[in-house]
């Protein structure tokens, strides 16, 4: 199918379609060729899809904590690692020593070594010492468990309700009148005057798990089972994570981005997000198509007739850096591709291909591009 975008997209689409939609009796040669030229070829065809907006130092490394729960876990982990390292060194040395020292030599006389059946003192020693180690480890751990799970919520805390969906995140700020998706904005928390974010975790379908390693440990989102967590990032920045409980076909691309804003940035963001959708004359046709097609069954745009809740809220779609829960960057081409054929970006996601003709597709995409 010819498109206005360019032949490389078409080829990428076609090849991807063939991979995903054909029977297992695929041509092996094609598969091998694909894997061989994968990186180069895919980067070319996928350049619009996976741009370079990710900071290369965005490694979700739990050893670089930036929030109190992550800090507490980090310190506990160092303690646990240290104890394990000591145990390892001792036992490893004993093992290595015994394997070397007590090997049968070439000039062995064939006599059996003296049989030692056991030693109560030794058994006692290597029972008591591990028990003490366990006690120490446990006490250190229990402190952290209680510290994180029983933290009091200060009055200035930001309250967020996170609802897990197959395969995207819904974020609501009930006190602030904000409803958004996939990209969580929180204010940076000054330790002298903390403004942590307390997140209530719910699910609309299966189990999910909220995991942004540099900010906190993961907590699951389980239907009919409310969970709670909190973060208080102490530096502004973007922190990445993803769903950490297998939730179905596209569990792998249910990505997370947490934007830690300065207080001013956060205030501005809240103000923008609480406004209803912008109305733009240029996008009238696109809006008409959007509102008379199945789009509104799943999506909502505040201030319009669209109030579907199955999919992400699109009122401020263009305020987000990514679409499809991080699976693609938020560009015109990707948005268009997503509406036209989501299987190329996120095969198995619950967004259906909308089967619009080229003109309507352009119009709807243009309309969405006005939803700042």
């Amino acid at each position, binding site marked *: 199918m010819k498109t206005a975008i360019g032949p490389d997209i078409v080829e990428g689409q076609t090849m991807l379609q063939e991979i995903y939609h054909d029977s297992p009796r695929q041509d092996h040669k094609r598969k091998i060729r694909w894997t061989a030229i994968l990186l180069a070829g895919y980067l070319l065809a996928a350049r619009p899809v996976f741009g370079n907006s990710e900071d290369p130092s965005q490694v979700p490394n739990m050893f670089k904590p930036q929030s109190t729960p992550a800090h507490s876990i980090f310190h506990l982990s160092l303690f646990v690692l240290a104890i394990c390292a000591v145990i390892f060194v001792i036992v490893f040395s004993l093992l290595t020593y015994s394997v070397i020292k007590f090997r049968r030599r070439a000039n062995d006389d064939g006599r059996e070594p003296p049989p030692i*059946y056991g*030693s109560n003192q030794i058994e006692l020693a*290597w029972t008591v010492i591990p028990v003490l180690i366990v006690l120490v480890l446990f006490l250190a751990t229990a402190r952290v468990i209680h510290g994180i799970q029983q933290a009091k919520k200060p009055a200035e805390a930001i309250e967020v309700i996170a609802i897990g969906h197959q395969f995207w995140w819904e974020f609501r700020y009930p006190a602030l009148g904000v409803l958004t998706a996939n990209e969580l904005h929180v204010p940076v928390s000054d330790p002298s005057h903390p403004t942590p974010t307390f997140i209530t975790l719910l699910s609309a379908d299966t189990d999910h798990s909220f995991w942004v390693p540099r900010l906190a440990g*993961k*907590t699951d989102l389980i239907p009919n089972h409310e969970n709670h967590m909190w973060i208080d990032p102490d530096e502004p920045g973007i922190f990445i994570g993803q769903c950490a*409980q297998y939730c179905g076909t596209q569990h792998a691309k249910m990505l997370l981005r947490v934007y830690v804003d300065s207080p001013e940035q956060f205030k501005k963001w809240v103000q923008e997000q609480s406004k209803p959708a912008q109305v733009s004359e240029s996008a009238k046709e696109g809006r008409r198509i959007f509102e008379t097609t199945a789009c509104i069954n799943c999506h909502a745009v505040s201030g319009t007739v669209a109030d579907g809740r199955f999919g992400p809220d699109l009122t401020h779609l263009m305020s987000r850096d990514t679409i499809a829960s*991080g699976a693609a960057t938020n560009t015109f081409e990707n948005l268009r591709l997503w509406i036209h054929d989501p299987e190329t970006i996120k095969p198995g996601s619950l967004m259906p291909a909308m089967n619009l003709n080229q003109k309507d597709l352009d119009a709807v995409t243009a309309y969405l591009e006005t939803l700042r």
Partner: protein
Amino acid sequence: MASETIALTAAHDVSQPIGTILHDWVTTVDHKKLGILYILYALVFLVIGGIEATIMRIQLIVPHNHFVSPQVFNRMFTMHGTTMIFFVAMPILFGFGNYLIPLMIGARDMAFPRLNAWSFWLTAFGGLLLYFSFVGGNGLYGAGTAPDVGWFAYAPLTATAFSMGHSTDFWTLGLLVSGFGSIGTAVNILATIVCLRCPGMTLGKMPLFAWLNLVMAAMVLLAISPLTAAQIMLSLDRFLGAHFFDTQAGGSAVMWMHFFWIFGHPEVYVLVIPAFAFASEIIPVFSRKPIFGYPVMVAATVCIGFVGFSVWAHHMFTVGMNSYANSFFTITTMAIGVPTGIKIFNWIGTMWGGKIIFKTPMLFCIAFLFQFLIAGLTGIMLSAAPFDWQLGNSYFVVAHFHYVIVGGILFTLFGAFYYWFPKMSGRMYNETLGRWHFWLFFIGFHLTFDFMHVPGLLGMPRRIYTYEPGRGWEIWNLICTVGVVFQIAGTFVFIGNLLWSYFKGKAAGNDPWDAWTLEWSTSSPPVEYNFARIPVVKSRRPLWDIKHPEDPDWKYE
């Protein structure tokens, strides 16, 4: 007596028509033949499970790879886990137990030979039922889908709303059926050890292998049943519209997790305790010393058996239990490290002062000691609930449990293969090929599973068919996949060695290792009735007593 015995066809007697031989094997109730059937069945599934793993590792070798679709990948990790646990590890351990326990305790067969056969065929059928899903489990994705809900099949992903078609049902029913087989075998092992020991073999004098299998069997009885119950509940939900795990009707997804892990955690002890049993037989013989601290080893194992039922929710630390529950499961999990550590110390104590012989079985057991130490320590890391809030459900956990199952259990299993192959086949294996197998597999195992810990520490969750570039995961995934090549090579060498040695190996004789337990007093392979006269024993090492009448064990034990 001689007139009642049935002449045995020796292991290499192929003068019978193939139909008779097949009929013999299919209808056998002889524990040795059933043991071998279990082992061969498991080896076939080991290869299949390995292929599934290889497919996953190829898909993950680079980010955004397109080797397989997400749907296929999700079926791969589900089938790989399910296969390896239920149709490789359990059958192979039951197989060795079946073969060796009667021989070691001086009995002629298991307590219930026909139950034994029934249990094997049930297990076998369960596996075939599961694999039939590849062609028969029609869902909305086209003809034939295997289950793709993960080997622990969390609710409500397994509800009909989220798993359409019958792929999940193949998982449930295949395991339900083989679960009955497992319970049958456990009943058999327990009754055999309690009721059929030869005169003089008190519980304190039986080989550690028997003790550990006794504890394992008791655990199976109590652990498989919760899984059976949960699977019945899931099937009622899926077939009759029940609401056990239907969160829309007030059901609890967390309850599935509790029931599953009340099975799942003891299950891993069910798997590892027979591995300990292999090590406890092999290490003494190749150190030329009796096991150090036999009573403590028994006590530690029984302790693990009990405490093992109190730790299950450490798989659920992230589920949102309150801080008291999290603390409880932290301390029980840490506590179970104590008896486990004691066992490691006792094995070292066995080698200490001995004369270690580095034949292939011992190589694998020594590697097991190093690897199980590491596996235990990463387990301690995971036992600290807050640390688990980061590491749980990540590749760190995947690395940890593969370290236990491959680095611990599979390595001792390889050791057991080489140790008892001469007894089962009458031939010696090729020692050079054995060493090649060991080193290839050792290198591959460490390449794959040492470095697999790192992506977990860097935030890579498990069960993802692809991952984003730029998160620092690429190089580690690449190395993990490279290790697979060595493991495959090692496995080929292993199978080649078994086949070659079976046909061309040197005759082994009764007791090639100069060992001390009763199985080595029989011929290799043993006659069908095991012992012409039931032995009478006085110590834990009856053959030592015979070989060293001037210095028998029963004077000192």
